[in-house]
């Protein structure tokens, strides 16, 4: 397997070497393999402890990173997906439904990307159209009706910028979600697991708690988009990735998010199982905290959470 991102090349090479040796099934090599495995852990830790924002952007988009369905499969039981916005269509890039999480029923909303070409097209590269956002809202309002907390997984390059999406009111769909999510009388816990692409991410991200995985990104615009607008040169994307402060640690600093959820050394894709269960523990704790709040308090807490967003001075 070749490296999906350039800085992982030494990791992939070492992985291949270990695999080769293991394939020989020679007991005499066991010690060497164990030594190399230790080296691999160390190498991952070393590389991942000093990623720059552009590298983190690449990890956030890593093709083997766990997607929403992986979290559902790893954390939930009895997943029942619900389809359609009752107005136009079912959007396959945004999932909505109900499942049991730690024995309790919850609503789950999440962007879904595909891995192979056919899946990518089916999931429209994780870019919803208005009907996706309308479906998400419909299911969130069902959750409110039945007193179920909402768990949202955010992972999208952005809302789909296409002709049909505009015709059917992409802007209106996102705007309505922002307003209506602010009013939900049940707990809403949001986690940006990969790419938090602008309004298309925010449209399912108005939560009581906002988490980001350690190597996720969340931004008003992609570094490439920013570079092409401000510099007319997509080559400046790396520099803009730094300037936009789109990493989990930067956004924690700016009080945009509540918690940075650590990933395994080597990123969530290097050990999906522990990444998924790590997030599960945080979600369980946060739902426990929010269970002490009544409906009005939840709405109030969410309002205050977003009310304090922004940095400015009162004097010109």
């Amino acid at each position, binding site marked *: 397997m070749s490296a999906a991102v350039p800085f992982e090349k030494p990791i992939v090479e070492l992985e291949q070497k270990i695999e080769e040796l293991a394939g020989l099934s020679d007991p005499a090599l066991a010690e060497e393999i164990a030594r190399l495995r230790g080296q691999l852990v160390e190498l991952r830790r070393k590389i991942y402890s000093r990623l720059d924002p552009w590298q983190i952007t690449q990890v956030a988009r890593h093709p083997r990173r766990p997607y929403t369905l992986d979290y559902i499969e790893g954390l939930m039981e009895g997943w029942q997906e619900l389809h359609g916005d009752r107005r136009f269509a079912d959007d396959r890039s945004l999932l909505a439904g109900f499942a049991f999480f730690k024995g309790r029923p919850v609503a789950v909303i999440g962007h879904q990307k595909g891995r192979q070409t056919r899946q990518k097209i089916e999931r429209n590269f994780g870019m919803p159209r208005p009907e996706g956002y309308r479906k998400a809202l419909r299911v969130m309002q069902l959750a409110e009706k039945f007193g179920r907390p909402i768990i949202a997984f955010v992972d999208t390059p952005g809302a789909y910028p296409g002709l049909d999406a505009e015709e059917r009111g992409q802007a*209106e769909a996102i705007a309505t979600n922002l307003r209506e999510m602010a009013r939900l009388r049940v707990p809403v816990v949001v986690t940006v697991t990969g790419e938090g692409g602008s309004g298309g991410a925010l449209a399912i991200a108005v939560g009581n708690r906002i988490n980001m995985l350690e190597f996720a990104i969340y931004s008003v615009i992609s570094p490439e988009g920013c570079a092409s*607008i401000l510099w007319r040169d997509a080559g400046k994307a790396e520099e803009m990735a730094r300037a*936009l402060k789109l990493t989990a640690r930067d956004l924690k600093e700016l009080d945009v998010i509540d918690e940075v959820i650590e990933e395994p050394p080597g990123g969530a894709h290097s050990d999906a199982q522990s990444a998924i269960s790590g997030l599960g523990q945080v979600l369980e704790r946060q739902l426990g905290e929010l269970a002490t709040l009544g409906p009005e308090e939840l709405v109030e807490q969410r309002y205050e959470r977003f009310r304090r967003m922004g940095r400015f001075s009162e004097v010109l």
Partner: protein
Amino acid sequence: MAWFHKAKKPRARSDGRRSHIPEGLWIKCQGCGEVIYRKEVIRRAWICPKCSYHFHLSAAQRLEALLDDGHYDAFDASLASIDPLKFRDKKAYRDRLRDYQSRTGLGDAVICAEARLGGHPIVICAMEYAFMGGSMGSVVGEKITRAAERALAARVPLIVISTSGGARMQEGALSLMQMAKISAALARLHEAGVPFISILADPTTGGVTASYAMLGDVNIAEPGALIGFAGPRVIEQTIHQKLPPGFQRAEFLLEHGMVDMVVDRGTMRKTLIELLELLWFGPRYDEEPVA
């Protein structure tokens, strides 16, 4: 060759501000390309007499044209950006801000005010496109949120006139979060049953359209205004084809059910007054009409 040079420098406006409408006796319409007598354009509320093109107006010009006696009391005028990301592209954001502040005489890209319209008290916000393309960062977000909270506290209608390229890149995710912040404040206004009228002027795109501009109880577009989520260039790059003429224009949005009406600048004031009376200031079904 001194006689080819002008003896006097061109006169600068005494207030030090620069309007984005070209000065001079004659003015070229950006809609039809005709050269028109400037005074005639002003007399028609900055609408081209030949093709009805709506010239871009400053926020102050809009407020003066719309409100009773052209009068308004601005609030939160001293709110200013602190460049929270220390953002720099070709130029430092901090320097850009200073330039736009001196050019427009404003602290940021919106004026929020208390005023009267048809004798009724209202809270009104007008965005300033000449200030960094009317982009929304922390200051615009905070000011419009406060305006919504003020309208809620006083139980008076809120009107927002949008003209904006969207969220301001130079403040990163903080700009994005303003969309949710303002929308949450509008949710409260909505629950309290206080009207919010959104006016969409040319252009209104991106995060502004995808939040408050689309959330009016009544959405009103100016004729020909470009209104959308993604900009036309981005869409063309995505679908690899040319967009049909009129796509994302006010009339297109009306046809697709996204705005309630397209209203000429000349009749905007009258329309707003009538709407406010129909929705809010007129008697409720359970009240006696006032003679």
